[in-house]
């Protein structure tokens, strides 16, 4: 696929999105494994203009470490936030590698991913950083909000709205939790977008999940919701979240990157024909449901895989599908 588009890679449990805009490439979150590496390789991408990490969890950052060390692609700019509570060695390894690239390879490396950022223009596509606020990022994980609620790594997840040609096309929410959502919606920020990448892979949000999903989907009014899940990992997406999404928008299309065990206890053997041709972590083991999802912008655009073929697959292969 070519043209301006957003590619939501199936990396298993984790997030990795690649935005293509007028020949520029932006990576938003970089989940683990080699799917992102393979995508960059097979797409002949030699340069990434911008990489954004929504927050410091391993399933959102490990792929950037892979990109930095693989050396087959130049990364020009990285935007992220500090997280002093994140004592993971992967986070430390990433800091080590970013510092090396900053010192030796001219990487622009900014620790300031907040709503204070001016919209980032990439061709006719714009990235709006809607959250976290500078104050929330400054307080950081491990501290508390002014009303005593605990701030975690997920709370300060960057929320990014992608706007194409003046129209919102997608809302990426990292692992945003209830505290972060309350803060976001409390500011009256416009979060509407036709495609919502649901926070935390459709898993726990730190409060009643159904209420969280209801408030988010009511505010964003998406026509499609993507859950970036790894089959057999953490039981995502949670049924109450899927139900809440369906309740708010009965016609909202739901796409899971991989086939949840709750939807199909067994995997079928036949090769699926509905998937996009883009690399997907679950393809080899027949674990894909929607697989890698591509949103093409502009005329002739739309969401791939196409809904009719995907629904047909679900009817045949997911006897206990939550989304139908």
């Amino acid at each position, binding site marked *: 696929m070519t043209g301006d588009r957003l590619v939501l890679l199936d990396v298993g449990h984790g997030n990795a999105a690649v935005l293509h805009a007028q020949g520029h490439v932006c990576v938003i979150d970089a989940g683990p494994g*080699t799917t992102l*590496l393979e995508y960059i390789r097979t797409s002949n991408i030699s340069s990434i203009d911008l990489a954004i990490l929504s927050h410091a969890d391993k399933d959102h950052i*490990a792929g950037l470490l*892979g990109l930095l060390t*693989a050396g087959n692609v130049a990364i020009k700019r990285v935007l992220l936030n500090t997280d002093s509570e994140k004592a*993971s*060695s992967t986070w430390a390894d990433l800091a080590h590698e970013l510092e090396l690239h900053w010192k030796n390879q001219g990487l622009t490396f900014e620790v300031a991913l907040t709503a204070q950022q001016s919209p980032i223009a990439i061709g006719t596509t714009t990235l709006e950083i809607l959250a976290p606020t500078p104050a929330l990022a400054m307080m950081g994980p491990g501290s508390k909000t002014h009303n005593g609620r605990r701030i975690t790594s997920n709370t300060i997840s960057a929320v990014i709205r992608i706007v194409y040609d003046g129209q919102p096309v997608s809302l990426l929410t990292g692992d945003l939790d209830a505290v972060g959502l309350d803060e976001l919606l409390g500011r009256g920020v416009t979060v509407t977008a036709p495609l919502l990448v649901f926070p935390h892979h459709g898993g726990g949000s730190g409060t009643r999940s159904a209420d969280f999903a209801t408030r988010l989907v009511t505010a964003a009014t998406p026509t499609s919701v993507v859950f970036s899940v790894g089959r057999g990992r953490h039981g995502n997406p949670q049924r109450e979240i899927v139900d809440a999404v369906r309740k708010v928008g009965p016609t909202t299309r739901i796409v899971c990157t991989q086939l949840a065990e709750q939807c199909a206890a067994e995997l079928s053997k036949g090769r699926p024909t509905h998937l996009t041709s883009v690399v997907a972590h679950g393809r*080899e083991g027949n674990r894909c449901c929607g697989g890698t999802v591509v949103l093409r912008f502009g005329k002739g655009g739309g969401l791939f895989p196409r809904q009719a073929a995907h629904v047909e697959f679900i009817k045949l292969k997911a006897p206990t599908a939550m989304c139908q």
Partner: protein
Amino acid sequence: MVSLNGNEIQRVSVIDDDPTSRDGYSLFVEELAMEALKEGGPFSSVTQCVGRVLASAQAAISDFKLRVKNYATFNGAELVASLYEKRVPAILCTRFEWADIDQIRPYRARIPSLLRPDELDAESLPLALERCVQEFRSEFAQTRRPWKALIRIEDVHSEPGQGTSIDVCVPSWSNNVMIRLRQSELPAWTHARLTQNERVYAEVNLGAERPEDLYFANWSES
């Protein structure tokens, strides 16, 4: 049927100290209309065995533990890796244990197909050979493609008679799994760098799904 350089593979050497295993593997070969050459040994060197395979067959299946009853002076990992260098597709088929993996890993970059005996059959055999042939053309399966990766040294320990071992972590692969490597198998320049929390680099097949499939090659400082 698998082809090599445009020619179909017609004969497969079966190398195992156990005649029963040789017979068992040969059945799968013959089921695919290929001829199985059951090698009775003994082999005094890898070079001798490689020469024997080159002279008579276009592919091989080898057990790992070949030193039993003086069948050979080397193990199957050494043999399969040597055949790989000669562009002969070869399968290492063994009931391996973790201790064996430590011995196999130094050769793993040149062993595309490691199967347990119960995984080898008439369906998996041509796929395993095909995987070798593809790598000879530099076409790697996602699970085998090498990527330069950061290696973090987690622990260094010496045991009497065992030499020095290094536990490493490959964070781009998994942050939770430690891989044990023998210092003697790493380039000499690395030895001074092998201290806890030190970071070096190597080519690693980051798409590997199992720890036993990971290989390390082309170590570098930066």
